[in-house]
C-alpha cells in the first residue's frame, strides 16, 4: 500500500530545484581583482576604531591604513620618519624634542599639529580615556608645545625606547578637535586619521572597506579601494584565495602553503618575522636545579621542530631575539646535544630510569602547531630523562597564572615584537616586575631593570646582547624558533615584505 507520489513527481521536483539553483547562481560571483583594488582575507577584525585603545598585533597593519604613526619602520625594521621628521632622545632619556611635518591633514581637512600629538600621547591618557596606550606612555609627564610643528616629550623616568614605541602598538595620532567635538564613542563609529586610506565601511567580524585618501601627504597608494574580508577559519581563507574571491590571505597552515606553491596562479610564502617561540621557565620547583634546566634545553632538536611544523622555514634560535635585530647574536649557538643533556641530568642524580619530573604548560591553537610542538618536546625530554606532565592553558590565563605564581616549570609561549628592540624581547620576557616573565631570579632581574633605564642606545644594546647570552647559559630562558607568517597571494599581486609581518595595502600593486 503506497501513496501515489510517483517517481516522475520526484524527478520533476529535483529538476525544478536544479533549474532554480542554476538560475540563482547564473552570475558567477564577482572575483576580487580589479586594476586598482585589492581584497585581502584577514584572520581577525579590529577590536576598536580608536587606534590608541587596544594592543592587538594583527590589527596594526589595518590601523596603519587609516591612521599614521609618529615614526615608521622600514621593511628591514629601521626607524624612519613619518609624521615626526626629527627626534632625538636626550642623553638622560628624560626628554625627546620632536618636529612634525607641516603638510599633513586629517581626513576631514583639519591640519595635524603638535596639539594633536599632545592630545594622543598625553591629554587623552590624563583625561582617563580607557586606552592601552595609557600603559605604554604612563611615564610621559608632559608634552611641551613649542610651535604647531615642534614640541618636547618629557618623561618622569628614562624612556630609552620612546622612539621605538612611537612605531609600535597603539601609537597613532588622532585628531584632537574632531574627537573632542564628537566624543570617543562616536569617534569609534566614524574614525578619521591622516593615513593613506579613509574608512568607508566596517561590518563587524565580516568586512572593512577603505578608500584612498587623495589628499594623503605621502606617496599615493596604487590601490584605490582596499577590502579586508575577515575570514577567521583557515580552511575558509584557503578556499577564498583558491576560488579567487580574495587576492591575498595570511596565516594559513604551513602544509597548505606547501600545497598551494604548486598552483600556477598563486604565490605562497613562509616568511620568518619578529616573533619568538620560546619556553618561559621558572627558577624554582623542578627547575630550581640549573642542570635540569640546561639539560631540558640541550635535549631539544629545534631544527627538527622547524622541519616538522614549519616546513623548515622557522629559524632555530639560541637567544630571545630574531635574526637581523639589534641584540641578536649571530655567533652564539646553543647546540642540540642529547649526551650533554644526559650528563647534566646524571650530575643531579637523574636518568631515563629515574627521570626529573616537571610540569609543562602549552596553549592549543594560540599560534600555529603550538600543542604539537609541546607534545614533541615531551618526547624529546623523555629520551634524556625528564618526565614532563603536559597541561593545556588558555592564552588569556597566562598572565593571571603567572601573577599568582601558578605557572608550571616550563610554559610554551610566543612573543611578538614588531620593533625588534631587545627591551621588548629579553627585557619584557625576563623582567621580574612585568607580567610576561616567569623567571624571578634577581641576578638576571637586576640587570634587566638597569637596562630599562639605560638611555645610551649603544650601551643598552651591548647590555642586552650580553644579557641574552647569560640568560640562556643560566637556563633562565629556552628560546626555540623564530615564528613564521604564511602569505598566499595571486601571482601578479606585488607586496612589500616587512621583517615584522606587516602586510600594507598602500604598498601593493598589480603587475
Amino acid at each position, binding site marked *: 500500500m*503506497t*501513496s*501515489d*507520489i510517483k517517481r516522475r513527481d*520526484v524527478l520533476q*521536483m529535483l529538476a525544478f530545484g536544479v533549474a532554480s539553483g542554476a538560475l*540563482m*547562481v547564473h*552570475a*558567477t*560571483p*564577482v572575483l*576580487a581583482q580589479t586594476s586598482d*583594488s585589492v581584497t585581502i*582575507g584577514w584572520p581577525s577584525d579590529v*577590536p*576598536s576604531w*580608536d587606534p590608541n*585603545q*587596544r*594592543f592587538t598585533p594583527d590589527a596594526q597593519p589595518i590601523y596603519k591604513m587609516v591612521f599614521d604613526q609618529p615614526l615608521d619602520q622600514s621593511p628591514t625594521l629601521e626607524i624612519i620618519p613619518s609624521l615626526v621628521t626629527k627626534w632625538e632622545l636626550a642623553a638622560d632619556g628624560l626628554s625627546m624634542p620632536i618636529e612634525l611635518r607641516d603638510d599633513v591633514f586629517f581626513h576631514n581637512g583639519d591640519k595635524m599639529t603638535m596639539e594633536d600629538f599632545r592630545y594622543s600621547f598625553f591629554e587623552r591618557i590624563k583625561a582617563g580615556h*580607557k586606552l*592601552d596606550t595609557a*600603559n*605604554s606612555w604612563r611615564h610621559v609627564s608632559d608634552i611641551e608645545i613649542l610651535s604647531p610643528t615642534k614640541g618636547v616629550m618629557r618623561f618622569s623616568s628614562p624612556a630609552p625606547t620612546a622612539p621605538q614605541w612611537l612605531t609600535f602598538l597603539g601609537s597613532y595620532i588622532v585628531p584632537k578637535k574632531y574627537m573632542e567635538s564628537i566624543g570617543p*564613542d562616536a569617534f*569609534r563609529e566614524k574614525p578619521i586619521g591622516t593615513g593613506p586610506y579613509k574608512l568607508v*565601511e566596517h*561590518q*563587524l*567580524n*565580516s*568586512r572593512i*572597506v577603505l578608500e584612498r585618501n587623495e589628499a594623503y601627504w605621502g606617496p599615493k597608494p596604487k590601490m584605490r*579601494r582596499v*577590502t579586508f*574580508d*575577515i*575570514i*577567521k*577559519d583557515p*580552511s*575558509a581563507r584557503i*578556499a*577564498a584565495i*583558491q*576560488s579567487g*574571491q*580574495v587576492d591575498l590571505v595570511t596565516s594559513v597552515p604551513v602544509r597548505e602553503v606547501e600545497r598551494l606553491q604548486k598552483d600556477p596562479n598563486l604565490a605562497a610564502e613562509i616568511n620568518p618575522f619578529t616573533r619568538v617561540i620560546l619556553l618561559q621557565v621558572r627558577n624554582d620547583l623542578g627547575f630550581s636545579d640549573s642542570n635540569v634546566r640546561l639539560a631540558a634545553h640541550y635535549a631539544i632538536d629545534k631544527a627538527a621542530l622547524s622541519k616538522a611544523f614549519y616546513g623548515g622555514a622557522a629559524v632555530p634560535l639560541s637567544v630571545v631575539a630574531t635574526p637581523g635585530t639589534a641584540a641578536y647574536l649571530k655567533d652564539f649557538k646553543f647546540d642540540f646535544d642529547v649526551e650533554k643533556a644526559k650528563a647534566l641530568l646524571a650530575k643531579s642524580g637523574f636518568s631515563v630510569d629515574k627521570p626529573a619530573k616537571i610540569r609543562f604548560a602549552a596553549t592549543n591553537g594560540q599560534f600555529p602547531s603550538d600543542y604539537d610542538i609541546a607534545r614533541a618536546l615531551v618526547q624529546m625530554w623523555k629520551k634524556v630523562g625528564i618526565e614532563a606532565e603536559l597541561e593545556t592553558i*588558555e592564552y*588569556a*590565563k597566562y*598572565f*593571571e597564572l603567572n*601573577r599568582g605564581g601558578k605557572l608550571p616549570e616550563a610554559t610554551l609561549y610566543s612573543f611578538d615584537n614588531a620593533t625588534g628592540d631587545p627591551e621588548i624581547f629579553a627585557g*619584557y620576557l625576563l623582567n621580574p*616586575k*612585568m*607580567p*610576561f616573565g616567569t623567571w624571578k631570579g634577581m641576578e638576571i632581574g637586576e640587570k634587566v631593570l638597569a637596562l630599562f633605564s639605560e638611555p645610551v642606545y649603544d650601551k643598552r644594546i651591548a647590555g642586552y646582547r650580553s644579557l641574552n647570552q647569560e640568560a640562556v647559559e643560566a637556563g633562565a630562558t629556552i628560546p626555540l624558533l623564530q615564528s613564521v607568517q604564511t602569505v598566499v597571494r595571486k601571482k601578479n599581486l606585488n607586496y612589500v615584505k616587512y621583517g615584522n609581518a606587516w602586510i600594507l595595502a598602500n604598498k601593493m600593486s598589480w603587475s
Partner: protein
Amino acid sequence: MFATIAKLLMKRLIVAIPILLVVSALLFIILRILPVDPAAMSLPPNATLAEIEAKRLEMGLHLPLIQQYGIWLAQVLHGNFGTSIHFRRDVASLVMTTLPSTIELAVFAMLIASIIGIAGGLILFHVRGTRKEAGLDFGSILLLSLPEFLWSLFLILLFGVALEWLPFTGRLSPGVERPTITGFLLLDSLLAGKPAVFWNAVQHMLLPCFALGISFSPSIMRVLRSSLLDVYQDDYIHQARLRGLSERRILIRHGLKNAILPTLSLMGVQFGFLFGGTLLVEVIYSYPGMGNLMVDAIRNADLPIIQAVGLTYCIVVLVISIAVDSLYLILNPKLRVR
C-alpha cells in the same frame, strides 16, 4: 481561538520570567567561577599588579558573588549589559548589531531544513516497504551524522572553490553598498529599493543556510516518516480509502495534517538548536552575526558579551517555544477546547 492563544501567551510569559532569572544567575555564577580574571583581561598585558587591583575594585569583583549578581541584574533591567572587555563597547549595541543577521540566517536555514525535511519525510514514507527504503534510510542517517561545520566546508569546496558558483565570505560582495534601515539586510535592501543588493545578499546566504538547513533536516524527515506511519494505522485513513479518496489526497489532506503536529514540535526544538549551531557556521562563512561575536567572546574571555549573548539565546528559545505552542493551537482544534 485568539482568546486561547492570548491565555497561553500570558501563561508562558509568566513562566518565562523565573526561567530567565535562573538562566541569568547560572550564567553569571558559572562565568565568575571560571579561572579568568576579568580585571586583568580589561587591561593591557603590561599593566602592573596595582593597576589590576584598582580595576578589580572598580569592577566590584571584591564584592560577594550574590551582591555582584544583584548589581549586574539591576543594570540589565535598565538595559545596561555592561562594556565589552575586548571591544570596549557597549555590549547591548554589539548584540543588537549582530542579532538581525543571525535571525535572518536561522530563519532561512530553518526554512530550508523544513522543506528538505518534509519533502524527505514524504519520500521516505512513500518508499516504505520497497527496496529503496534501505538506501534512503541510510542516506538520511548519513545526513544526520554530518555536523553543520562539515557541511559548511563541503559546500564551500564544491560550490565556492570547484564550481565557483557562489560567494562564501561575508554578506555582500566588495563594492556593494549596504543599506541600513532596520539592521535586517534582506529587508533593508528591499525597503531601500535595491534589488541588486538583495540578490547579492541572497547569494551570500545560500551556502551557510544550506549548510545549517541540510544538517538539521534529517531528524525532521525521520520524525515525519514515523508520525505518518502511526497516523496511517488510524481508522480515519481506512475510512478515507473506503470513501474512494486518492492516496495523494489522503496523504496531504488527512495524513500529513495530523502527522505534522509532532514534527512541528520537533521543529520548534530544532530551531533552538539551529540558532546555537550558527556559531561555527558564522565563523566559517565570515558571517557577521551573534555566533561569530560569541566565538570571539569565548576566545577573549569577554564575560559581559558571553552573558548577554547567552541570555539572548535563552530569550530566542523561549520565544520560539511560545510561537510553536501557538501554532499548535491553531493547527489542532482539540487543544483549544481544553
